[in-house]
């Protein structure tokens, strides 16, 4: 088979979902009312902050002559400091994310991408710099970056069974949004988060799970396989394992929450059958709080 043609076809296949994803994300983002996101102090920015009497050292250019003409004192207009944040978004694209228990439910990956892009739209509209983690790209501002992000998210691929957060190239003091099922090695996640926390990176962990993963509605002799087919587990009586499975899942969630608390991150668990707006609002609020 012509590899180039295959790649092209595959890319087109993937990209065909892109406008839809972008549209979905925009639609979703529109539901969130953008709040004030200044730094509440004077500094570089576009928005008016306050007038202050001019002091020696202020250049004549800085004087607001229109304001000053109304009084004898010369005023300088100060703007609100609007330093943009760098935010890296990482939707986990590993094979374990490509799962949905019901044709009516989206795959976990679809939900992660939707949330990632919607959050990116909100952030870019808010003037922040956003990048996709793990691509090596620098966080950038503007609508153009949004298109690049959308393309990058749609083409993002990970052949690993379970994803590990890519935290190495995050700028210091930046923010991160990690969307994954966090079913992989807990140690890797811990070390990634710890190293990020050392560099002052704060952020949000969103665990996306399928309702079946949460409910474990199985019985009878069953062979469980992961989507990549690399792992298999056979049980003769699946129902008998339910309690222990749920316990392990709860442990995993507790560990993640614990990890987040220790590193100053925030953690939430989102199910693909739950309303996506709720998750987006939470993400937005969580990122806003730490800004």
């Amino acid at each position, binding site marked *: 088979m012509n590899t180039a043609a295959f790649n092209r076809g595959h890319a087109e296949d993937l990209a065909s979902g892109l406008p839809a994803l972008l549209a979905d994300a925009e639609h979703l983002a529109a539901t969130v009312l953008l709040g004030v996101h200044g730094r509440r102090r004077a500094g570089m920015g576009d928005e008016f902050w306050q007038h202050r009497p001019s002091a020696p050292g202020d250049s004549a250019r800085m004087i607001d002559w229109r304001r000053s003409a109304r009084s004898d004192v010369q005023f300088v207009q100060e703007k609100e400091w609007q330093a943009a944040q760098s935010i890296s978004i990482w939707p986990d694209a590993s094979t*374990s*994310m490509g*799962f949905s*228990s*019901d*044709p009516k439910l989206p795959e*976990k990956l679809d939900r992660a991408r939707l949330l990632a892009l919607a959050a990116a739209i909100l952030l870019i509209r808010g003037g922040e710099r956003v990048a996709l983690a793990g691509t090596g790209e620098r966080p950038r501002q503007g609508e153009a970056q949004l298109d690049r992000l959308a393309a990058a998210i749609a083409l993002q691929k990970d052949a690993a069974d*379970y994803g590990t957060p890519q935290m190495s190239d995050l700028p210091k003091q930046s923010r991160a949004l990690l969307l994954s*099922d966090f*079913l*992989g090695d807990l140690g890797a996640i811990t070390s990634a988060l710890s190293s990020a926390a050392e560099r002052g990176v704060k952020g949000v962990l969103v665990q996306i799970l*399928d309702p*079946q*993963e949460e409910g474990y*509605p*199985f*019985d*009878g*002799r*069953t*062979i*469980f*396989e*992961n*989507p990549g087919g690399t*792992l*298999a*587990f*056979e*049980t*003769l*009586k699946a129902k*008998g*394992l339910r309690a*222990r*499975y749920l316990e*392990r*899942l709860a442990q*995993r969630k507790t560990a993640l929450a614990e990890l987040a608390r220790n590193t100053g991150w925030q953690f939430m668990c989102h199910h693909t059958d739950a309303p996506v707006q709720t998750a987006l609002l939470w993400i937005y609020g969580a990122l806003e709080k730490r800004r």
Partner: protein
Amino acid sequence: MFSMFGIAFVTPWLLLGLVLLPILWLLLRAVPPAPLRRIFPPVILLLGLKDDDSQSDKTPWWLMLLRIAAVAALIVGFAGPVLNPQPQDGRDAPLLILFDASWASARDWESRIERAEAALDSATQPPRPVAVVLLSDLANGPLQFQAADSWRKRLAGLQPRPWMPDPEKVTRWTRNLDGRFDTLWLSDGLDRPGRRELASALQDAGELRVVESAFPVFGIRPPVLEDGAFVLSAIRPQAANPAEIELEAIGLDPAGNETVLARAPLRFESGDRESETRLSVPAEIRNRITRFSIEGLRSAGAVSLTGDGLKRREIALVSGQSDREGLVLLAPTHYLEQALVPNADLIEGTLGDILLANPDVIVLADVARLSPAESKDIQNWVEKGGLLLRFAGPKLAASDVSRGQEDPLMPVRLRAGGRMIGGAMSWGEPKALRPFAQESPFFGLDIPADVTVSAQVLAEPDPELSRRVIAALADGTPLVTRKRIGQGQVVLFHVTANAEWSTLPLSGLFVQMLERLSVSGASGAPKVDELAGTVWVPTKVLDGFGDLHEARGLAGVPGEVLAAKPLSAALPPGVYQGQDRVVVRNVVEPATELSLADWPAFVTIEGLSTAREKQLKGYFLSAALVFLGLDMLASLWLSGLLLGAAPARQGKAAVVLLLGALALHPDPARAQNDELALEATTQTVLAHVLTGNRQVDETAQAGLRGLSDVLFARTSVEPANPIGVDLEQDELAFFPFLYWPVTPDQPQPSAAAYAKLNRYLRTGGMIMFDTRDADIAGYGPNSPNGRKLQQLAFSLDIPPLEPVPDDHVLTRTFYLLQDFPGRHASREVWVEAAQVDAEQIEGMPFRNLNDNVTPVIIGGNDWAAAWAVTDMGAPMFPVGRGSAGERQREIAYRFGVNLIMYVLTGNYKSDQVHVPALLERLGQ
């Protein structure tokens, strides 16, 4: 064949397979059900978990049992199990299957045939030649032994005969038996002469087995009328146990259907061989009874036909003299009454009342003149089968009835005056009767010597006369004459009905003559000498099961045979029609006795119950299939696929399960029909016929919509949206009105559609044919549309037509109109022609046309186009030019309103009440 518990196996060694079952049990037990593969990303969380108990991997015991049962059923099934295997007796001598086949074996004939079939089955292995013989229908010649298979087909055609075997023939046949053979004798269990000899002869020829049924035999004797009630008696051969049977009187109900008219229970006490009961029914019902039967018993012996004998005839007596009170013995009808009362119901009254009662016989004793209306009524009654019996008398002799010209109600012309013989003023002696001629219905009656005639009316000589005389005096003058009219007859006794003119009414001959004339029913069975010389034609005959059939192709039977001979193929029991009478022959006669057969000690007697061989293979294999199906379902259920699985799969499983239920889904076409019916009947709906031409159909639809809107706005008719009707499929009855635009290329409706259309027209529907070509052609076959209309309407039930007359109701049902324009303004619109006798009353503007709504209106003005509006309500097509065109459109709408009013209200506007108001308006 290996046999056990009444079940044998064709290939018993296959049963060894059952030994494998325990091994199978172990094998199945060790193999758990197939696992289900599931994608489950958190499998990593499961790694390292262990199953609780190791038991659950085994198949559940009940599923194993199911599978074992399935396999066992398979093994047993293929081993070929046979229920009730027929033991092989190993005899190979020819087999004679002997049926009595009398009416007494009809009660359980099917089991007899089955028993014979079983015997044929066992005669195939080893093959034995078989002969089947019916004792009641013996063929001449030696026994015909054939292969069992060739008999099998003919067995189903064998029928019991409605008579007993003829002992004489049986004896002859017994004597001719030779050779060696075994016999299976399916006996009816009744004793009769020659049975013992036959049994011995058969025993001598080989093994004799006799099969007798435990089912009781009953026979019903011919009922006897006693004091107005039926005495019903039944007989039975065995007297051991008490028994109860129900007797039914069967006849025609007033609607002419055969039904049970009365019932009577009959109880046999222990020891009774005969029992009787009385059944009293009203005369009306009594005369309708055609036969009695024993309920639930199919046998000719359980049926007793009633002939004429049981009927009580209704006889009306009308006498001309009723003014001579007190002189009973001189009353013209006294002797008639005495003769008739025992056997008939007498009616007295005026002729008009009597005819209403529709009697069987009307006796006119010395009635000369009848009014023309009475005469006509009586003629009609006679033609339908009545018997008019007239007696002469002084009045008749004095009148001029049937003098010059034969009166329709007189058999002969009469000579004026009559004659007196042997009186004080005459020379001759009173005349005696001449013996009856052979053609006479009185033939064979003894003439007492003391019957003399001293006066009579005389018949005018006539070419017809000799044929009409049925009794004459010794000198040849007619005494009784008869003429047939239609199905009935008129009989004239040329003497009086009392003893004034003759001693005939005093003699027993008079009663017999009346009986022969069917005036009074003869009682009892016909005597040999009574019937001698006559020929009787069977009209209905009984078969062995007691069912009545029309007798076809049966030869007539001489009277003496009918009266005396035992029943046989040449004389089947049934109804025999003579010249004037009906005689029945029943299977059980008054003297018939039944007794049980007494078999010699050497005879083996068997019951009739047949245990037929039954192949069980199919049942076992079906059971195995069912088990396997259950196993499949159970396995699905166990592995969680059937319930609690992903919804999509569940759906598939449901589809599989419900495949069988698919047939129950309602027919979509029918649902659609119901929809149409609802749509058409909840509101008034105008309809048009779909022609298949899209443009025409759309125009018709739009036109009717426009008309509906106008109706809605101007009148209290508020139609819903019009409907296009497919003549082939849709029901028409819902629509008061059909608009049928004619296109030259529309398909001819099918015969069924035409039937529907004609029914529609007859039940008050109206079709408006529109050829839509009035601009280019007149009415007639000159345009393609006109020709098509002719073809379309050819099969329709259309009355004569005329152009709409000026005073047609259509011109004034809502608006007063004289023109009926559509898009074209031709005056030629045709409707059903008015009655020819409709006349205009002086001073009235209209004829009185208060009948009939025309079923069709035919024209070519393309009304739909004039009415048609778009969805916006604007006219679709231009009509005429300018304001004149708009006026024409308005008139078209008004015509439409008139038309629908006419359709919905009929000729209401032709009612005279509205004439003054209409007159006033017309005057302006």
